[in-house]
């Protein structure tokens, strides 16, 4: 029986992990991710799961242990945030380069300096080219649902890549939210058993992992193959989202649209701000502005073609970015990708970028409405909510 519960986001993630019961969880605590590992180690202590938890001395080691365990054929999950993700940096590429289906929750938090523990997407956007699939969640429900699906996506033979699931720090991670959990048996059946084609512990078929590419250079070919896995992930994310919908009633795809079908003005956003955006869309509609929302769920791979076809009828696109590329007036990462997706189209909407919420600065309804009002005349890129 599905169960309706009230949980903070980190506990929603831990619940999904409990149902998955991964073989190994190497982790290091960092605000605001800590409660995931805390709750999960309590679950281990209570005998609810059989996972081996490895308490490591840093996030670099957490990802290293995750890589070793995954190469040994184990199903591996971990979680991190911010500086922790940054410390994993070089290992992120090794996980994806070795094609290891590790699933990691990243509780989105900005990067220092100055020191700040609040939400923005600087951390995960820094890892956007690391070869990890990236899924963003609007609320605890989506965080929970994304984690379950991430296992299937990562382990799919056409993909075999690690997946990062984002939940916004504090806004989702530390707020109590109502959500529906699927039944334990249904979850277990959905994720199924993990079997890697090669594994280090398969002593009957011994293998060598992470070897030097021999000076003759096979690196390029292996990267090309990795790019194909990422490309394949787009169809797999859709297929798994459908399959998950059949057992949960909640269907997932690359993005969700809200009142977009007949819209003239489209807003694009990732993560928790989508809730406020929907309220803004309703308000704009009541004022006679034909607004709609495209809430991006999958940022890697980037669903360029689908995005273009979903937005082909609008005249204006306002992209809201919770991080900046700091690239000299190029705007945020979502803006850059969404705008360049339209380059080859004959009919291109006008694009505007609003960088908002850095270091956890709130985004409220008024700010969105003001942004929309200014969008016909304002700059290409606006820092929304900064004190001028």
């Amino acid at each position, binding site marked *: 029986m599905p169960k309706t519960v009230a949980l903070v986001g980190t506990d929603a993630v831990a619940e999904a992990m409990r149902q998955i019961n991964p073989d190994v969880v190497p982790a290091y605590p960092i605000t605001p991710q800590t409660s995931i590992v805390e709750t999960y180690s309590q679950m281990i202590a209570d005998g609810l799961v059989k996972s081996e938890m490895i308490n490591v001395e840093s996030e670099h080691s957490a990802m290293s242990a995750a890589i070793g365990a995954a190469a040994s054929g184990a199903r591996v999950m971990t979680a991190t945030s911010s500086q922790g993700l940054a410390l994993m940096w070089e290992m992120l590429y090794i996980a994806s380069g070795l094609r290891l289906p590790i699933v990691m929750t990243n509780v989105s938090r900005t990067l220092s300096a100055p020191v700040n523990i609040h939400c923005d997407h600087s951390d995960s956007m820094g890892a956007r080219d690391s070869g990890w699939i990236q899924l963003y969640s609007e609320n605890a429900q989506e965080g929970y649902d994304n984690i379950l699906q991430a296992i299937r996506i990562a382990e799919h033979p056409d993909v075999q890549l690690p997946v990062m699931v984002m939940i916004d720090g504090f806004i989702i991670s530390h707020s109590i939210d109502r959500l529906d959990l699927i039944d334990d048996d249904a979850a277990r059946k959905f994720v199924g058993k993990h079997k890697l084609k*090669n594994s280090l512990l398969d002593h009957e078929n011994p293998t060598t992992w992470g070897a030097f590419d021999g000076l*003759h250079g*096979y690196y390029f070919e*292996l990267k090309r*193959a990795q790019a194909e896995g990422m490309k394949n992930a787009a169809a797999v994310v859709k297929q798994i989202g459908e399959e998950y919908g059949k057992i949960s009633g909640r269907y997932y795809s690359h993005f969700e649209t809200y009142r977009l079908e007949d819209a003239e003005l489209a807003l694009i956003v990732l993560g928790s701000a989508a809730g406020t955006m929907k309220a803004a869309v309703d308000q704009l509609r009541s004022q006679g502005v034909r607004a709609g929302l495209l809430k991006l769920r999958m940022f890697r791979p980037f669903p360029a073609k689908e995005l273009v076809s979903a937005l082909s009828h609008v005249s204006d696109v306002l992209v809201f970015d919770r991080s900046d590329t700091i690239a000299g007036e190029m705007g945020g990462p979502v803006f850059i990708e969404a705008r360049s997706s339209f380059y080859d189209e004959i009919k291109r909407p006008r694009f505007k970028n609003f960088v908002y919420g850095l270091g956890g600065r709130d985004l409220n309804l008024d700010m969105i409405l003001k942004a929309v009002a200014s969008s016909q005349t304002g700059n290409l890129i606006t820092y929304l909510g900064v004190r001028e």
Partner: protein
Amino acid sequence: MAKWDFSKIKEWGWKEHPTGGVIPEAATTDSYATGGWRSVRPVLDSGKCVHCYICFIFCPDSSIVIKDGKMTGFNLRHCKGCGICAEVCPAKAVSMMNEAEAQGLEKCHLAGQDLGTEKSA
């Protein structure tokens, strides 16, 4: 002999490589000379050696050759010339010698190319 046929690996397209570059067998270094970058090599004075195997335990490249319970010398296809064996030997039975000199070449640090090492680029 390798268990997988990679004789044409240099011509392989990206679809032919195993996923993630995983080599479908273990201990492949055995058939691949890695000692080519050695600039000094260990030399054993068998008269002094007490066959304690301390060098065997410490050698990072498994290059100490033991036969019939006796330390008999070094596997120079894999010895990188780090000198750890000479350092840890309690009997001072190992000394390090310039590699080029050992090969009868002029003293230089580009030696080691005639030890079965692949001549790559």
